[in-house]
């Protein structure tokens, strides 16, 4: 439920030989990272034995320097590191008549902002007339964007008479 992971995109250059891609990926898991996408960029008419790979990954904050060192030790050359994107995650719980009040509209109000999105939704479905409960995980680009997204949810919850249970932010 804590924020503070970093999204990084890296352009890596390595020898086009067996085991090299694995050598590049291994350090990522060693620093607790999570690979979001791997894109091969083999030039079609290239006759070199160099392989370009673009990797998008998510890292716990403060691990990037360690990853760079580990990659270099594996003989992987980092051509470029993309703009870091802070990925804030917060989980809220919403209680009420979620289906009757158009849950997809509630989700859309976050998704349509462009700076935040609902990344996960778990729901309980009790008897039809009873209030249901849902756990909604939101991701945003920055801390301020998360505050804006939560403000939107607060407003929507009020409009639709839903109970919004927010997380207690980290103190200190």
């Amino acid at each position, binding site marked *: 439920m804590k924020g503070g992971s970093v999204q990084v995109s890296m352009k890596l250059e390595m020898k086009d030989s067996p085991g090299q891609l694995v050598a590049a990926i291994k350090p990522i898991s060693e620093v607790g990272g999570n690979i979001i996408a791997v894109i091969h960029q083999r030039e079609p008419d290239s006759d070199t034995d160099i392989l370009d790979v673009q990797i998008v990954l998510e890292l716990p904050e403060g691990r990037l320097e360690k990853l760079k060192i580990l990659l270099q030790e594996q003989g992987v050359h980092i051509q470029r590191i993309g703009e870091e994107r802070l990925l804030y995650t917060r989980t809220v719980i919403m209680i009420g008549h979620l289906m009757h009040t158009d849950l997809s509209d509630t989700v859309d109000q976050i998704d349509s902002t462009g700076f935040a999105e609902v990344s996960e939704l778990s729901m309980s479905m*009790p008897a039809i007339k009873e209030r249901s409960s*849902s*756990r909604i995980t939101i991701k945003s680009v920055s801390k301020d964007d998360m505050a804006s997204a939560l403000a939107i949810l607060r407003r929507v919850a009020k409009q639709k008479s839903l109970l919004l*249970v927010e997380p207690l932010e980290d*103190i200190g």
Partner: protein
Amino acid sequence: MMRVALIGMGSVGRGVAETLAKKDLGIIITGIADSRGGCMDRNGIDIPAVLSAKKNGNSCGTSGITALDVIRKAEYDLLIEVTPTNALSGEPAIGYIKTALARKKHVVTSNKGPIALASKELRTLAQENNVALRYEATVAGAIPIMHTLEHGLAGNEIIGLYGVLNGTCNYILTRMADEGLTYEQALMEAREMGYAEADPTYDVQGIDAAIKLVILANTIWDNGVTLENVDRTGIDLLTADALRLAEEEGCTIRLIAEAIPRKNILRVSPRIIEKNHPLVVEGTLNALTLETDLAKEITLIGRGAGSIETASAILGDILFIRDRYVQRT
């Protein structure tokens, strides 16, 4: 020898009387009154006799003597005001406290109403008369939060505070989380245990916690906030499923009172909180985290209610006043 008058003989008043009778602190009670009567004796009232009269369903004194009579006429240095809280008007306690302060008597109270509604006026009156007004027992029962703020953390800037200030709500939420009970089942159990009133509105809708938050905010920041300024949500609409959904993430739900003046936050609401967070306490316990510039975070945990537990907070105030103001003999 210090002389005190005691107004209110409910569970807190009896706890105070019992404690004063049991501990040899050099304090005598020279006046006692409850809603049905009162008594005065400048040489000290026989407390065990009064307590046993109360136990047998009798008044603590003569029906002709009212609380105001005792406050106006008894010979005492300090008034202990422990009558039931009236959150709307604060009366008759505000009148009691004013009368005593105007007589240049120190006042110690456990009553949230007067402090939440009229703290500025009462503190000014105390100052003008060069006496003390203390109210440690109004917030978080036995936890010495006021003393901590005033003395232990003197010189610190208090940046924010977060608290579990209502034992009834915390009990209900603990039981919902631990046993998968519905809100209604947990409330019923809390009633059977004597933790919830027949009408639980005041507790479960966060009013009690909000009043305590108002008292803390005014004490710390002197910002004049009132109950109406608190953004308040209760626990009565929470579901067992919601607790389970939180549990799946290593979290639970607690009613948190929160004040962060810089962010303009003054709020009581159920919150998702990690289970290993220091504010996640079990059952009827209370907890309070202060965030300060020098000490950083300080968390206090303890009993938020109970006759003797509340008497502990009241006694702390009395002895503080004795040592600071009243000559020791």
